[in-house]
């Protein structure tokens, strides 16, 4: 008997929450702002949903609307991804300068 997808993905979800819990507690408080901007960026992995929706062979009026809607989802998710990663990078560069100096 196969387990239902809900239970399958649910198990992964629960385990990932535990991983997140331990990983995030290990982040130094000094880097909490970059932590927020980077988690922000990776939560925009929802872009894969938008791409899948763009790339489906849909027909009819609702199919067309679906594509338009997902095109906008794609744009917003990209803003989130690029903005989030690059701003994180910018912040982390500032920490690099000092680490070098201290050595």
């Amino acid at each position, binding site marked *: 008997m196969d387990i239902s997808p809900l239970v399958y993905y649910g198990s992964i979800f629960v385990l990932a929450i535990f991983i997140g819990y331990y990983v995030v507690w290990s982040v130094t408080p000094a880097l909490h702002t970059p932590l927020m901007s980077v*988690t922000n960026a990776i939560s*925009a992995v929802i872009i894969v949903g*938008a791409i*899948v929706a763009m790339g489906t062979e849909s027909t009819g009026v609702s199919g067309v609307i*679906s594509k338009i809607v997902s095109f906008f989802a794609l744009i*917003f998710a990209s*803003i989130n991804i690029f903005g989030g990663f690059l701003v994180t990078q910018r912040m982390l560069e500032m920490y690099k300068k000092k680490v070098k100096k201290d050595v």
Partner: protein
Amino acid sequence: MFNNLMSVDLIASLYLLSGVFFIIGIRGLSSPETARAGNYLSMSGMALAFIVTILNLEDNSLVNLILIIAGISIGGTIGTILSKRVAMTDMPQMVAALNSMGGLSAVLVAWAAFLSPAAFGLMTGGYIKASSMVEMLLGILVGAVTFSGSVVAFLKLQGLMKSAPIILPFRHVLSIGILSAILFCSYLILAGSEIDQLLFLIISILSLALGLLLIIPIGGADMPVVIAVLNSYSGFAAAIIGFTLSNLALVITGALVGSSGAILSYIMCTAMNRSFFSVIMGGFGDEVGGSSDAKETRPVKIGSADDAAFILKNASSVIIVPGYGMAVARAQNSLKEMVDKLKEMGIKVTYAIHPVAGRMPGHMNVLLAEADVPYDDIFELSEINSDFAQADVAFVIGANDVTNPAAKSDPQSPIFGMPILEVENAKTVLFVKRSLGIGYAGIGNDLFYRENTMMLLDDAKKMSEDISSSI
């Protein structure tokens, strides 16, 4: 152009791999040395998820691929420009704005799935599967709350909207009413209503209203919690959509981000000694009236930049306590110059950072990093609090509530029980502030009237520059 390049199992495994990249990437933030490598790893995870998805599209006609690339180029350009332009001081707004994008795209993806369910394999016997329907509705709810809540947070942080809590009458009743309406509409959809698209739209609009209603009553001082909570919501919205689309990358990432935001909210709440519930219920900072109405008659010692320079020069150890006021005045660079001069004279200078200093977790650390302050000079509340008793000078610049002794001594105070930086124990307290006004929490600070306190009433940036030049 290319067809069924990968098996379903391979696709799932690669999504899992990108989830692993994200986990190790976040783990990199445990120290500034590994943080950049971690960020690159997270980027690779995202690139991997993207490539896997694009290689396995059902409709990979050239037109479609061009559209996808166009969408990403538009969004990518906007995102890149934003990330280059934003000032470090404005990072909380930036995160709120990006968060709203994430929430909005979750809503839109849920809509796309709802409009062409067959394409996502959500159909069973001519209807959308009930479990998928529930997931999409939840995705809409959480995504829309994230979106509108983040927009309000952005407006408040950007100063486009009053940051004081806005208390609507019957707001709790209103929220419960909206939530009930959402549940009722969801029930109708699940029961197989004919007008399901209209209901779906109504639910979206109601959810947006709910997000507004939740964040509007929350005051400026609680913004660090709000930002963290919304961050957490955006993660859970992604995870829920991941269930609908049976996508491992989304489920794993959403859970990670969700728990990250939740932990940060918890840390912020603890640092303010507030329960998570009371922050979410809002209204903090509206009790300005009571205590501050009484005209203050106690004497205040007000000093000039020269006085401050004299005191600082004769100290042997100084602890700097930066707060949001420093960020607003963009004083971090002039402060660093002042500190450098003091250090040249052999004075020991350290920085003490309260967890809720600034408008988001870790905000002060980023600003000091921008001004090139060495990482080793910066200490957390628990590391440095006992050092104040040995310090000659506590230099409070733009902080207020986090130093308020009422948190320890006055059970009537709204901030009673909040852990504070015990600057009062230093021999002299220099307090840079624009006026003798109350803090964000709307509470007067007893410290201003102490014997060992000298108030330096000026803009934080100007004051640091003036002190620098007279040292």
